[in-house]
């Protein structure tokens, strides 16, 4: 990262830290969800933007994380903190099991299959599988997180919790971006056969992308459950997956600032125009089209070629 980057991230974080003091609680809650959705979108971007797989079922992993925490807490009485590892591991396992048989599918075929998974997932939640998902209603009244005697029950504390998770996610994605696995995802995305032929195990890295993104989405799910003390199937249906999918494309695939902007545009901006009720979605549709025409590669497209300086110096 160069100094300009560090500076702009510094300003961004500073704004997020002081923001709640300038907002009413309504908006703190919106911004908390923004932070959570940013994490989910960044994780979606690993699969969609970086590895180039058209996953339109990402809400599954988000939902699995959220439901794991809610079920373990409400049905089995686990403290929230203890549910976190499960809420990360379960989505990873699910993502690998689901992705393994379909990972070779070409773009759009993968897209429908993942939509299919998502629909099966929400249907299963609604049918109250194993009698633990709470049916169409979901699960209400999940306890707050307690760490070392501190209880995350106020809106403000959950905001900072979400902020912390976003920071963590950004670190992970930065590390991914600048490492061998991260590059491998870009290679296999741009030309899978060429990647294979220079020795990249494309199957492994595709599953890797799914696993990593499911882990982050699952973690975001935990915070989501904490924010609302509730989970319900509709928060993880395929329309939500469409939202995350769109966020990445509108913002700019593989671009961290792009995805953050995308989340802001697709989630926070509509909240600003609430008073226009349903008409806002119409305007919003127009805006989506115009943005794509204006910036076909997203609002803030990715730039490749960030290579060490010693390569270009003689």
């Amino acid at each position, binding site marked *: 990262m160069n100094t300009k980057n560090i500076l702009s991230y510094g300003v961004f974080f500073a704004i997020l830290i002081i923001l709640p003091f300038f907002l009413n609680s309504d908006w703190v809650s919106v911004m908390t969800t923004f932070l959570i959705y940013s994490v989910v979108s960044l994780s979606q971007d690993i699969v969609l933007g970086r590895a180039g797989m058209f996953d339109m079922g990402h809400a599954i992993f988000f939902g699995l994380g959220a439901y794991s925490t809610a079920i373990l807490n409400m049905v089995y009485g686990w403290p929230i903190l203890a549910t976190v590892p499960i809420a990360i591991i379960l989505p990873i396992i699910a993502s690998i099991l689901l992705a393994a048989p379909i990972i070779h599918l070409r773009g759009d075929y993968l897209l429908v299959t993942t939509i299919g998974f998502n629909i099966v997932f929400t249907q299963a939640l609604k049918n109250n599988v194993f009698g633990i998902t709470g049916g169409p209603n979901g699960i209400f009244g999940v306890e707050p997180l307690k760490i070392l005697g501190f209880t995350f029950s106020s809106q403000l504390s959950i905001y900072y919790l979400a902020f912390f998770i976003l920071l963590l996610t950004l670190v992970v994605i930065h590390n991914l971006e600048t490492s061998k696995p991260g590059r491998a995802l870009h290679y296999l995305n741009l030309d899978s056969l060429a990647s294979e032929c*220079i020795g990249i195990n494309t199957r492994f890295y595709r599953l890797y992308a799914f696993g990593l993104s499911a882990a982050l989405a699952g973690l975001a799910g935990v915070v989501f459950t904490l924010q609302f003390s509730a989970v319900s199937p509709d928060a993880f249906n395929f329309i939500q997956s469409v939202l995350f999918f769109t966020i990445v494309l509108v913002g700019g695939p593989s671009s961290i600032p792009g995805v953050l902007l995308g989340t802001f545009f697709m989630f926070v901006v509509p909240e600003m125009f609430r008073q226009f009720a349903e008409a806002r979605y119409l305007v919003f549709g127009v805006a989506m089209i115009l943005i794509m025409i204006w910036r076909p590669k997203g609002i803030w497209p990715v730039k490749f070629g960030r290579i060490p300086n010693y390569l270009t110096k003689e």
Partner: protein
Amino acid sequence: MALLELDNVTKIFGGLVAVDSLSISIEKGMIYGIIGPNGAGKTTVFNCITGVYKPEKGKIIFKGKDITGLSPHRIANMGITRTFQTIRLFNEMSVAENIMSGRHFKSRQKWWHGIMHTPFYYKDEKENWLKVKEYMDLFGLTHLAKMTAGSQPYGIQRKIEMARALATEPELLILDEPAAGLNDKERLELVDTIKKIRDMGVTILLIEHNMDLVMNITEYISVLNFGKKIAEGKPEEIQNNPVVIEAYLGKEEEDE
């Protein structure tokens, strides 16, 4: 023992026998040429060797190991890398990143380095980028390091592709029509480059339609037609082989 051995390899598409019981044997350190009319099955042979296609019959032995039907990345990791008849670069990425892709297997980073960076990561990362620099210097690409590969002219793209292949440090480098689309001057440069690579100890297997180049650098040639080998031998022998002239070279016209 030969470095690479094809033993009765057969590849069939639908009803079409694209490669028909082909056996060839390539010694370490040589530049081996495969020529033949269009559609003779040359690229298909390459695809079988590199694992892109799985042959219906026959065995492919590399350094004494049977590699038939292995997936392409495993074969690449054993030391066989190729270029493509139609260039396949990571167009949107920079020249340096393209070559870095060749370092994938040699880099010893593990999966968790994509999540967490350790001191080893920094060491490994630097080592590999410096390797990339070596290859860029070798092909005269250093000044283009940050440029987008896809916007480079054809000749440069061929070089990038070759640098990428070489960055995997292969024992066997397979080139599919490396001179296609190059003019005569660029072709002479290519000959030098290929010889340089051979001198680094890399065995080279190539397909080429340009006879000047083929006759100039290969040490041994197999000629394919309809998937079958119709002749093999040293370049001079091939040049005068009436079967090859008939099927492939065409009758020589009196040239100035």
